[in-house]
């Protein structure tokens, strides 16, 4: 039970980091698109790929949390 909770806290912390990261990516991409609307589609693709990489961090943490909750059963 406690192991699961600690893993959950860890997942939450990782989500904070990933949230900041994705926020940054989105903000910068928006800035870029506003500055160069003609490159918008390229920026969008790259943004999604970068966001996917950052998101993976949070998801790893989520999976670790799942691993932790295995103890409960």
């Amino acid at each position, binding site marked *: 039970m406690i*192991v699961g909770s600690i893993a959950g806290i860890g997942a939450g912390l990782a989500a904070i980091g990933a949230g900041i990261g994705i926020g940054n990516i989105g903000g910068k991409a928006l800035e870029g698109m506003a500055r160069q609307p003609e490159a918008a589609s390229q920026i969008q693709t790259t943004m999604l790929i970068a966001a996917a990489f950052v998101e993976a961090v949070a998801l790893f943490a989520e999976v670790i949390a*799942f*691993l*932790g909750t*295995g*103890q409960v*059963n």
Partner: protein
Amino acid sequence: MILLALNPLVSPDPGLFIWSTVTFLILFFLLSKFAWKPIVKALDERERSIEDALSKAEMAKAEMAKLISENEDLLKEARLERDSILKEAKEIKDQIVNDAKDLAKSEGAKLIEKAKIEITNQKLAAMAEIKNQVSSLSIEIAEKVLRKQFEDQGKQQALVNDLLKEVKLN
């Protein structure tokens, strides 16, 4: 990690793994053989045909433009030729008119000259006639006058004397 029992969520189920692998591979082969190949081919072909059609249209357009410009050139040329022909015709006409004018002038002048000469000739002839007539008349008149005058002998003598005087002077 060993402490943590695996949550059923994150432990891959071998049965499902086998099923999904087999199904996915079969799906992949069937789809790539019967679906993706013809679809991608058809899409590529259609794209190519559209591109071809577009390039053909472009070519036709260029051809059309070329034809039009050629036509225009021809027209221009024709117009120029017409102009030049007209100009030439005008020149010829002018020349002919001028020639005619000149000819007429010179002919006229000649006629006038002739007429003048004729006139002069006639005049001279007439003058000569008149002179002759005047001289014969004057001779007749003189004869008649003389005859009248010289009915008197003295007067004849005086005249002879005068004439003689004049001869001396000469």
